[in-house]
């Protein structure tokens, strides 16, 4: 049970940490879903062709990076609205994936890649799990103690002010978008290489949105975000048990979303109480 919750946690945490960094730079990334899908497809293909999981993961990261960069450029250089760019990119990538499966690979839905090299076990879990685990303290430290971290925070909290100081704010946002893409790509790679060993066009199945909820939930703090992912993973795991215990499936599936609303409300109320500020 714990093992399978950790398996679920890894892709969520990778994507959520990426989205969180992007959020800290001031952009809400709704495109994680699509970037995960792109990463999953490329990861599966490259792992299959090269029969090497490392190359598969790296290629997935590169695919995510490319998608993240293009999306970020649309936002930072062309002033696209970030929400709509995220939704739009997810639609484009999903459409493109399906189109390619049908028109190029002549399969629909599932792509079984011959010779796909799955992630090996390391201390009982896969390497991407350890990467996600290592990223949490690393990001926490980097945000506080490196110039890159400080500039990232500054760009997110005071875009104009940071720009007036001569920081390349748009480029900083692009870099954050690329990092988010890389991590989302890794997350996609984990779905194909770390879990089921095949690609399906629907396999991301809303996990990008859960990742979004997780970093909102964690209020853009690495540890809290990772814990939120763990909560969702355990939830997902518990779902199966609740269902077999006879609770209606459709209602069980709404629980994580209700929890997000409840937690957001609780924190907002607490903040408002704490400030007891202006009324409006």
């Amino acid at each position, binding site marked *: 049970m714990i093992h399978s919750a950790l398996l679920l946690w890894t892709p969520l945490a990778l994507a959520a940490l990426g989205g969180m960094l992007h959020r800290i730079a001031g952009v809400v990334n709704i495109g994680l879903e699509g970037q995960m899908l792109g990463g999953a497809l490329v990861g599966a293909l490259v792992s299959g062709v090269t029969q090497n999981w490392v190359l598969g993961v790296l290629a997935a990261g590169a695919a995510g990076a490319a998608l993240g960069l293009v999306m970020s450029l649309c936002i930072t250089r062309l002033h696209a609205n970030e929400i709509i760019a995220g939704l739009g990119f997810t639609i484009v990538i999903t459409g493109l994936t399906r189109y390619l499966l049908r028109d190029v690979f002549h399969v629909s839905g599932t792509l079984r890649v011959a010779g796909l090299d799955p992630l090996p076990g390391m201390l009982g879990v896969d390497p991407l799990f350890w990467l996600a685990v290592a990223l949490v303290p690393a990001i926490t430290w980097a945000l506080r103690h490196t110039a890159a971290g400080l500039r990232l925070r500054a760009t997110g909290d005071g875009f104009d002010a940071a720009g007036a100081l*001569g920081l390349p704010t748009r480029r900083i946002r692009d870099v954050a978008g690329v990092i988010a893409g890389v991590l989302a790509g890794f997350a996609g790679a984990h779905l194909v290489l770390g879990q089921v060993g095949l690609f399906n066009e629907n396999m991301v199945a809303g996990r990008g949105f859960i990742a979004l909820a997780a970093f909102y939930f964690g209020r853009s703090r690495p540890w809290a975000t990772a814990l939120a992912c763990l909560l969702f993973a355990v939830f997902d795991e518990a779902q199966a048990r609740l269902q077999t215990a006879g609770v209606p499936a459709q209602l069980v599936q709404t629980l994580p979303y209700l929890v997000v609303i409840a937690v957001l409300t609780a924190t907002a109320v607490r903040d408002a109480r704490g400030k007891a500020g202006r009324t409006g």
Partner: protein
Amino acid sequence: MPVRLGARDVSRAFGSVRANAHVDLTVEAGTVHAVVGENGAGKTTLMRILYGLDQPDSGTVVIDDHPVRLRGPADGIRRGIGLVRQELAMIDSLTLLENLVLGAEPRSGPRISWSAARASAVDLAAGFGISLPWDSPAGSVSVSVRQQVEILRALRRGADVLILDEPTAALAPAQVTELLRLLRGLRDAGRTVIFISHKLDEVLSVADTITVLRQGKVITTVPADSVTRPELVSLVVGAPLEAEGYSPSADVGPPVLEVADVISLRVHAGEIVGIAAVAGNGQDELVERIVGLRPCTGRITLSGKDITGLPVDRRRSAGLGYVSGERRTEGLSLDASLADNTIAGTHRTLGRFGWLAPGRVRAHVQRVLDGYSVRYGRTSAPARTLSGGNQQRLVIGRELDRGPTLLVAAGPTRGVDVLGEAYIHARLKELRDNGSGVLLVSEQLDELLTLSDRVVVLHQGEVAGEVPGGPENRTAVGNLMLGRQP
């Protein structure tokens, strides 16, 4: 003398507005150079161009005698120019130390050396005899502290030309003195300062050279010790201006405002009551409670009517007018049109059955904008396109036009040029003479003392004392503001 920084034939237009027209400016190294001019004269635009935040349509920036092209602020910073803007460029969520080092962090590898950062911060501040709460978030400290950090930041990054765009507009007198002392210190250390202010006394006391802009053009550049204040005023305005005198109220009526809270206060009809306080001593909260933007535990009455629990709109219809001290965020909606800004608050009276009557809206907008000499292009243009002073005129016009029985005015002349200031003062007095009450909150002691019939001084959220108006009470008020005996 070499030209440290300057402009050669610089022009910049926004649509049909010529913000800068063939401007030539020469700032010599090691001087304090003031740039003055009426609202909308093009001062801010010129400074943005000198720093690299904006590009001229034609003409060039000159640095160290060489024409240069600045593509962005990074170029300006690299060439030793620092800008402290009208809107401060501080990031609220970061600590002062983080704000200070941002963009030029002392590093060892990718890591920021926080101990080196702290040491250099403390050193730098000590050089000017100040010490700052380096670990506090910038959002939690006063404007004056933020401004000091901005200046230190520019210096830390090697700026030896420092441009300050209306740095004193939001400062209390003691802080202004402090700042001017700091600027003189900089000059004496060999740095160059460009200083913008509408307070001509400050300009005369700190500047070596003064450039006067009017309608985008340079009118003249003169040594500061060659002009008197009245001469400078007539250069700025284009005509001499009579000095204002103190004229207390002739006829004080019954109370229009009574506040019984932590702060107790009373404003009568036909009276201007001034509130004096160093920023952060409770004046903002007091204003917000009276206006209805902040819940109140005590009791507030307006013309005898209890308004404690009423929302803003009900207070306004009961005769309250409000000129916000936060012009750009609260007094105006910069992205909304001039017309929409002008009818705000009165919009419910400009139609019926829930619909606005276009004719009445147009008439109202015309009356306010023309009546208060707002300089504008089209009423459908966003308020953002007005210069600071014209924005303030719009706000004043909107609120006075309602004929309020009580006007709460916070910093009503902040950023307004001399002519505008005189004009707004006259209007406030006129309002008082017509039997309304005015609660005037201002950091500018001179303004408070010339306008107010009484001055209530706040210190640490409580009433520290009350002093009659008139310029002779300056020291008493100043002492009370700092928590001393009058």
